[in-house]
């Protein structure tokens, strides 16, 4: 088996794992009482979420006027945060779908958590368009359902409507994909559980028995969903970018937005995956499954997409000059040198410059560097959205209407609240389901485990061990 893989390639699973050990390592956290770290983190998350809910209720009660958005800057924190979260939600599906299709085996270590992150991030993202409306109780007007209002229909010309479809589709497909992957692992948990837990997991694993037919259908479904998801990864952020690109406002009305937004989304998504993975592998002791190789691979993606985004920033500047159109020129002058110059500096520094350190292999493989750069990228990508949305609106065509914006405590509260929501969900997820796709890791063990690869290969011993002890539900026909 190991013959198919280059000996130079580093193993994806380290620590001489066998199937049983994998099960213990990955299923174990769902079976133990939470440790103190988890309890502290969960408490903080829930408190933050509560604060966010309070801020949200405040908004509902008093109106959007609780925010500092104004007649000139109609969207600010709300849509900035929406685009930011939706961008973060891109890595999961990219890892699951595109890397699956490209047979990138390293994805198995991180895909589960990344997909979970996607779903939670999309939930956080969806919160903003749903609640930023003046009358959120009428949001259902946006759905094209047969109604009693005569011929009144939604406006299919509106990018906001496209957004609604794009995001809801993306969320649905991602959720299905994620759950499909979870089923075999949930069955593993079920088999080891007792009492109520057993019943619960039995329900969730949908009668999975590990039959060949189950596996076959599982794989087919995964492939089909991967096939559906792949264009979605590209389309969602493309459509989000249409919210701006189809408008007439200089600085928004830009054809470069779709590819640039997609690259940015992957960039920020991977950064967030890194942030989370670095913490998760430490907390759950998963260094053997989420190895520095994984981290390095993802850093490479960050480097590439970061540079793409950076190039797009520079191309935008060039095009604004080249257009000869004063409004466009002014919009970009204003972005760089105007009252929001600090956010432009933040964007450029964090997105274009910071990831360049990843040209060094040493830094790419360094967990601390990775963590810090991933935080930088998260911040930088937030600034990017803020620059595009608030800065552009602040000074557009008519100087009489120029304005300046900074957030109110309510807007900050809602943003913090989405962090609360995200981490609450993630922490619950990490307790309830295996954070690493156990079945998929097992599937690549014999190809990419360190005992089978490279200088550490000790195939016979471990192979034997594996066959005698660990036959539970890992019956692989590969």
């Amino acid at each position, binding site marked *: 088996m190991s013959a198919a893989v280059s000996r130079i390639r580093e193993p994806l699973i380290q620590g001489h794992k066998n199937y049983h050990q994998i099960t213990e390592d990955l299923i174990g956290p769902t079976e133990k009482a939470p440790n103190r770290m988890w309890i502290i983190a969960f408490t903080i998350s829930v408190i933050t979420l509560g604060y966010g809910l309070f801020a949200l209720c405040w908004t509902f*009660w*008093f*109106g*959007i*006027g*609780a925010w*500092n*958005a*104004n*007649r*000139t800057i*109609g*969207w600010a924190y709300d849509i900035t945060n929406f685009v930011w979260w939706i961008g973060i939600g891109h890595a999961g599906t990219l890892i699951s779908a595109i890397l699956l299709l490209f047979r990138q085996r390293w994805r198995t270590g991180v895909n589960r958590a990344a997909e979970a992150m996607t779903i939670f991030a999309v939930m956080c993202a969806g919160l903003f*368009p749903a609640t*930023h*409306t*003046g*009358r*959120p109780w*009428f*949001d259902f*007007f*946006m759905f094209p359902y047969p109604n009693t209002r005569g011929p*009144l*229909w*939604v*406006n299919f*010309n*509106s*990018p*906001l*409507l496209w957004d*609604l479809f794009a995001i809801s589709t993306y969320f649905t497909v991602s959720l299905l994909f994620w759950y499909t992957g979870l089923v075999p692992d949930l069955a593993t948990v079920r088999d080891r559980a007792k009492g109520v837990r057993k019943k619960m997991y039995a329900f969730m694993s949908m009668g999975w028995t590990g039959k060949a037919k189950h596996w076959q259908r599982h794989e087919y479904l995964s492939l089909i969903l991967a096939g559906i998801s792949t264009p979605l990864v590209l389309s969602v952020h493309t459509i989000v970018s249409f*919210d701006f690109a*189809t*408008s*007439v*406002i200089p600085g928004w009305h830009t054809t470069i937005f779709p590819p640039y937004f997609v690259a940015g989304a992957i960039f920020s998504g991977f950064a967030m995956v890194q942030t989370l993975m670095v913490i998760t592998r430490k907390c759950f002791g998963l260094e053997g499954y989420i190895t520095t190789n994984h981290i390095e691979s993802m850093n490479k993606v960050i480097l590439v997409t970061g540079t793409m985004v950076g190039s797009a920033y520079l191309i935008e500047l060039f095009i604004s000059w080249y257009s000869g159109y*004063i*409004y466009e*020129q*002014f919009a970009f*002058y*204003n972005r*760089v*040198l*105007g*009252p929001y*110059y600090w956010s432009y500096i933040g964007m450029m520094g964090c997105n274009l410059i910071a990831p360049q350190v990843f040209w060094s292999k040493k830094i790419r493989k360094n967990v601390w560097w990775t963590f810090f750069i991933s935080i930088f990228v998260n911040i930088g990508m937030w600034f990017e959205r803020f620059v595009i949305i608030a800065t552009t*609106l602040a000074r*557009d*065509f*008519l*100087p*009489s*209407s*120029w*304005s*300046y914006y900074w957030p109110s405590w309510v807007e900050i509260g809602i943003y913090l609240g989405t962090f609360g929501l995200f981490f609450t969900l993630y922490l619950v997820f990490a307790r309830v389901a295996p954070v690493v796709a156990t079945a998929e890791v097992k599937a690549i063990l014999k190809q990419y485990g360190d005992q089978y690869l490279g200088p550490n290969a000790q195939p016979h011993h471990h192979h034997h061990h594996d066959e005698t002890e660990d036959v539970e539900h890992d019956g692989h026909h590969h």
Partner: protein
Amino acid sequence: MKNQNKNTEVWVGVEHLEQDPIFLESINREFNDTPALLQADGLKLGASRRDFLKYLGFSVGAATIASCDIPVKKALPYVVKPDEIVPGVATYYASSYVKGGDYCAVLVKTREGRPIKIEGNAMSSLTQGGTSARVQAAVLSLYDTNRYQSPMKNDGGKWSKMSWEDLDKEIGGKLAAGSVKVITNTILSPTAKKALGEFLAKYPGSSVVTYDAVSSSAQLQANENCFGKKAIPNYMFDKASMIVSFGADFLGTWISPVEYARQYAVTRRIEEASKASMSRHIQVESSMTLTGSNADHRVLVRPSEMGAAVATLYNAIASKTGEATVSAPKVNEKAAAALAKVADQLIANKGKSLVVCGTNNIGEQTLVNGINNMLDSWGNTMTFANASLQRQGVDSEIQGLIREMNAGSVGSVIVWGANPAFDLPNSDKFAEAFAKVKTKVSFNGTPDETTALCDYIAPTHHWLESWGDAEPKEGIYSLIQPTIAPIFKTRQAEESLLRWAGSQNINPSAEQPYYEYLNANWQSTMFTSQNSFATFEAFWDNALHDGIFEKPVAAFPEFGWNGDVNAAAAKVTKPGSGEIEISFFETVNVGAGQYADNPWLQEMPDPITRCVWGNYLQIPIEFDGNKSFDGVGKFAGLNNKEGYKEADQIEITVAGKKQLVTCVRQFGQKKDTVGLALGYGRKVSGAAGRNIGVNVYPWMSIDADGNTQYFATVDTVSGYIATTEYASVQYHHTMGVTGKAKGYEGEVNVDEIALMRVGKGFQGSLVERSVINRTNLNELPTFLKELEEKRAEFEHLNQQTLYPYDQFVAEKYSQGHHWGMHIDLNSCTGCGACQVACLAENNVPVVGKFEVYRHHEMTWLRIDRYFFGDYENPNVVYQPMMCQHCDNAPCENVCPVSATNHSSEGLNQMAYNRCIGTRYCANNCPYKVRRFNWMDYTTADLFPVNEHGPEPFVPYDGEVPFYADNLTRMVLNPDVTVRVRGVMEKCSFCVQRIQEGKLTAKKEGRALRDGDVKSACMTACPTGAIVFGDTNNEESEIAKRYKNELNYIVLEEINVRPSVQYTTRVTNRDEALLS
């Protein structure tokens, strides 16, 4: 009236009301007679399980159905319908707006018996259908919750209500105790003066003391000295081709701005570019006034130099025309040089020149009369035929009264409309002396500083509840008729006077005693002075219908020039030597303070500073030559963060009194001067005016002739004290002001350099914006060619399309109506009448200072103000900006729910019920004219707790929010939806008026004619700058205006196809004049 839809008393039917004994018995019985059906069976109280379930099901169902029903408030139909009221149809009554000397002939629009809107009366030769912001806002003051609701008596600081009978009894005795002084502002009403005469005759030694807070006292005195006529001349700005104003804000606040603005616009409008001619207007001032902002040139002088400037011009003209010069103080060199050149141009335009002066100095006014005399202005551009009576107050009279009151020789004082305890320079002295008077009665209808010091309040009607007349100019009369029955237990002041006078000419038991008195007076005076009508009834009906009666112009009276210019020159103010001088001026919104409690006017941005709810110290700024603008001298470093919504506060001391003031950086402010509006800082007033801004009256002084002086020397200026919210609707000032900058050659656009925080801006970011087009008269031919080329290029750009959109639009709007608007930037003076008219017509909410500071203002129509030209002394262009009703509207295609869409008549319309409030339309609007209901400003939301009253009407102080009050809500236009929080709104082109016009035409079985539909802004405009109409109608005014070669479309190149066109702003500068 503070109850919100609360029925304090409930009754059931007429029987209850009439206390019918049978009915009363029945309501005390809990159960009615048992129904017959149950009686037959016997009353079975037991119920089976199935019955229980049935009842349960039924009652749950019934409760559900019942709770789905929103409570319906039923309107009671008329039993006998009054002839003049048709529900749903507006009725218009001619009347006159009079407040002190402010006058406007108006039509009052009433709906179901309540006045809701004021329009100009086009039959008046004086205002010709124009209005001002103050006139437009006047209807709101009728429904002011702060109005006194009955007579009141002051019992040792506590006010108690009393009846009119008791008041008459008490006062009758007290007035007889000594002489009575009646303090008034200018009274325009001849009949009121007659009533006053009767009153004064009853109490010997009595007199009327008339003064005006912003006074023309010196001018009246000077005219009396020069011509023997104590009146303001009848100015004819429309006949002038050279206008020089020494600080007179004749377009904004001076004497009769509605009239003057209309005349002025005649000389400024360019209907055909090939035959363009314009007057030249030079304004001499220190702070930029509305008039100064419209001028071609401003000559900057310190406030104390104004007299020297007048004298300099006098001498320049005198020496050039061979007259004797006078010896007078010198004005600054720059101004002197400019005035010398102005003198040449004035002489060249002899007989077509007009010089006006707003100072309150007899010497200066005499010299100005002398200048006009030398320039042959008398009889050409000004005359005493139909002389203006709009300012009659002489300042020394009230000063004399203070001395008399101190001496104890005044028995009682009646205050009628005036507020001397607030608006005199020595109001503290007035208050002291006033306290010594035994009986003090106020006729004022709302709280003010003087009324608070009185013993009795005998509140008069609001003018919309009153009968009356006015004579704003000699021989020009107009009538005031009530358009609503008095809301409160008020009584017209004239009636009170006549009753207290025990007049034989009034029948106190009549239903409307003063109406009969007025009627009789007109019969004996006006009727006899005309011969068009044979019977008084016909004459009266006609006058009442038209609202005006104008006597044929009497033969031009000859006044001999009798002015002593040398004596006058000696009286001229000596230029001060103080480091910084401050001028106090009236703003178009709150006036001398009498309009301070009107929220519409408080929230109307000042045309120049664009600030709301307060007066801001206008500090001079200069370009540092490198990067930024900064305050000059002692004002350095102040207000540098206006763009971040922050204003700085400093303390200044004038006349030994220190006050904290908020600054605003002002282009066009002379360097060693500052300006601050008067009329703010009311302490006792309705909620809207209380403690808003700073009271500057105590900083003023009185000259040797007893005339109030509206400037002072600033003794000390503190540095920065505090930062406050900068409640301004417009931060960025300019459309390119030029000057010298380091590192650049020649004149460059310095504001563009200062626009960026880091580095420098770039040339073209402001001036090349296709927002404002402007040129100078002498460059017109070149400009027209450029404009044509530019528009051709835009048209070419707009033709580049994948879709045959042009064809679509062309076909779509080729039939039926296509509504459009045209705005003449040369006629627009920026006065703001249209803006307030829009608020009144369209139920646009007032949001308060804090919300404006957050840029949450709701105005559908705003007037953008841009500076251009030399940054030290720039010109101004005003641009009324409202929804442009784009035929290719960017807002429409982005709305996910189609809440904003296009009508077949080219209107961009809002379906409020459909709007969910994504605000995408507002973001995508290139003109930023869409307004979002950020909070529940109108109290139309479901939850009463989130009602957001505008400050200072905050909902938390126990009072109901401004718009929640049933009295205030009476001002709402029933034809326009009151928008709920969370929805977007914007200018609708007054679609309700379009609909009304179409319905009227339909009922009359005819096609819609041009002029059937006029938007509220169009009817409000005093200069006719705004024209609205059907562009598909070739005969229409708008179609004609659309052909003007100077027209342009704002942001034409982005192909949104607006339905609003503007004319290029043309100035008539002569660069040699100020070089």
